[in-house]
């Protein structure tokens, strides 16, 4: 099983990329990395709790690209959340679908990334760091680039809606490259819809540049079907006085790995990472986050919360680097988990590397059961046990949900969470 990384999967992939004629340099580099390293082996430190390669080997029969499927307007509309008011960018198995997308195009541009030269691609999410970035770079067919110009305040959210469906367990490789120029403000929302229950592998790469004094919110919902295998590499360069806030709510899937990296490249910038994983069945969600403080006076806040039922599994790894130059850094990290069953597990690990001496850093993690005292208290007031549990769990989750800045999307995600917890509060 351990050799499969360099045999079956990579061979297929390397063969495949020969047939793709765009992005030659990027693909050649990616292929070289894959050939050399393969996908993560079981003993690989970064993936030690998440045997993703084995999972792929067992479930994905064809490492070729998933071809686009039939969509229709009705279907697309069904998956807009109530009160949605913004621009819509639809992806069909990872490929941008202009037919179902709509946006004014006044304040920003969207370009299809299907040919060279695209010098910037791969400069933020570097493929040396993670083999799945190399894999995406080698095999993605086309992506999109979004450019928000200086001083543009985009009031309505930009909603990325992904429709995924593979017939033979194929690979979906979305690729986004987003540049937000100085002083611009924008909110991105993201949701992925699985169109059936066939297994697929979605391997996405998102690169974002947040230029000086720009402010960006990016909220994502992961509620794919129970056989979806998902890897996301999401990396952001954050420049002087800029802020970037990520909210990520994971509700389902087979195995999901989220790599989220915020590079705080200058003074005065702020990076926030909020996450909720509410899991049941055998869903496995692994959040690896990384915040890199390189200059003085920057701040990062991180709060991830997990509720795990049945045989689900959560992994949290939070790296904080504070470089020698980064004096007066404020960095906060918190990971709290509630296990609802004896078969659910969580592995949580903060990893702080601090080279500066004048910094404020704090981190903490807890894993426990639902507070029995609180449960009894609410029951003693007349609330049914399930209802009381739901209320307590919802209160626990609410702290993260509150961070979703867009009202409509927050309500939509909140409703999904409440449905899972049983009842409304």
């Amino acid at each position, binding site marked *: 099983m351990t050799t499969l990384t360099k045999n079956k999967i990579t061979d297929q992939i390397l063969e495949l990329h020969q047939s793709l004629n765009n992005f030659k340099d990027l693909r050649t580099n990616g292929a070289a990395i894959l050939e050399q390293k393969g996908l993560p082996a079981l003993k690989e430190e970064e993936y030690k709790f998440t045997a993703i390669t084995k999972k792929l080997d067992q479930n994905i029969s064809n490492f070729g690209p998933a071809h686009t499927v039939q969509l229709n307007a009705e279907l697309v509309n069904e998956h807009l959340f109530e009160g949605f008011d913004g621009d819509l960018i639809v992806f069909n198995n990872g490929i941008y679908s202009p037919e179902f997308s709509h946006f004014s195009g006044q304040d920003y541009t969207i370009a299809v990334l299907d040919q060279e030269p695209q010098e910037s691609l791969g400069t933020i999410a570097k493929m040396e760091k993670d083999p799945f970035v190399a894999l995406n770079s080698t095999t993605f067919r086309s992506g999109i680039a979004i450019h928000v110009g200086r001083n543009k305040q985009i009031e309505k959210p930009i909603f990325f809606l992904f429709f995924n469906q593979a017939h033979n367990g194929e690979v979906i490789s979305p690729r986004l490259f987003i540049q937000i120029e100085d002083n611009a403000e924008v909110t991105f929302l993201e949701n992925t819809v699985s169109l059936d229950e066939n297994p697929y592998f979605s391997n996405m790469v998102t690169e974002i540049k947040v230029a000086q004094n720009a402010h960006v919110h990016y909220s994502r919902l992961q509620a794919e079907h129970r056989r979806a295998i998902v890897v996301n590499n999401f990396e952001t360069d954050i420049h002087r006085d800029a802020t970037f806030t990520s909210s990520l709510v994971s509700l389902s899937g087979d195995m999901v790995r989220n790599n989220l990296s915020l590079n705080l490249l200058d003074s005065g910038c702020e990076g926030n990472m909020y996450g909720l994983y509410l899991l049941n069945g055998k869903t496995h969600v692994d959040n690896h986050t990384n915040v890199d403080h390189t200059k003085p006076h920057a701040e990062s806040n991180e709060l991830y919360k997990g509720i795990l039922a049945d045989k689900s599994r959560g992994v949290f790894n939070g790296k904080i680097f504070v470089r020698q130059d980064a004096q007066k850094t404020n960095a906060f990290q918190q990971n709290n988990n509630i296990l609802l069953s004896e078969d659910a597990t969580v592995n949580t690990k903060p990893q702080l590397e601090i080279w500066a001496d004048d910094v404020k850093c704090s981190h903490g993690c807890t894993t426990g059961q639902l507070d029995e*005292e609180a449960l*009894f208290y*609410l*029951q003693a*007031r007349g609330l049914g*046990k399930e209802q009381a549990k739901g*209320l307590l769990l919802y*209160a626990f989750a609410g702290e993260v949900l509150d961070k979703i800045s867009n009202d409509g999307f927050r309500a939509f995600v909140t409703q999904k969470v409440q449905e899972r917890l049983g009842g409304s*509060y």
Partner: protein
Amino acid sequence: MLTIKNLHASIEGNEILRGINLEVKAGEVHAIMGPNGSGKSTLASVLAGREEYEISEGEVIFQGKDLLEMAPEERAREGVFLAFQYPVEIPGVSTTNFLRTAVNQVREYRGKEALDAVKFLSVMKEKMKLVEIDQKLLSRSLNEGFSGGEKKRNEIFQMAMLEPTLSILDETDSGLDIDALRIVSSGVNKLKTPQTATIVVTHYQRLLDYIVPDYVHVLYNGKIVKSGSKELALELEEKGYDWIKEEAESASV
């Protein structure tokens, strides 16, 4: 209304209640006193339905029904209310937040129609006055950062909202200054009717000047070792518990 017969309860293998007998009738106020660790809160918790306790013997009949058979929420809906000695903190859940659901569940059980948001608010306003509690407090995370007095007033406020038949107040007076004590006990007194009954657990005779008991019981070592009228509380205040302990010990030899 409430009949407790030979109630034995234990936790983690330790028998805490060792044969409690108590009869409470509608309209009555019973005070339960006793030294620390004698089992007063255990009795209150067992009546409210805390599941950690094992009931090895005895029975509790509440308005003709077997109380021990019921889940905590059923007891609440039947009309049992426990004001906690140490009310729990619940981050992210405010009083208003859970109380409307609680009140409506209780009302539904009792065959009354649910209160809509507007009605609920007006009932709340009325009951808030009873214990002079601020609405802001009720929309904060439950008991988080509340002062001792605020916690206890909040308990009585909830009691007012839930309209119980039997209220068990576990040291609702402890730690209160005299003003807060007056507010809380006048709240309790206003809620009293000939159809309801109250069990007050307290260490202090002072409370009983305001909530005047019909009976005073002394709980010691998991048993009610002495019962009397309100004068017993005065005697205890004066003489302490040593004489009771001696009496109890010589009686058990």
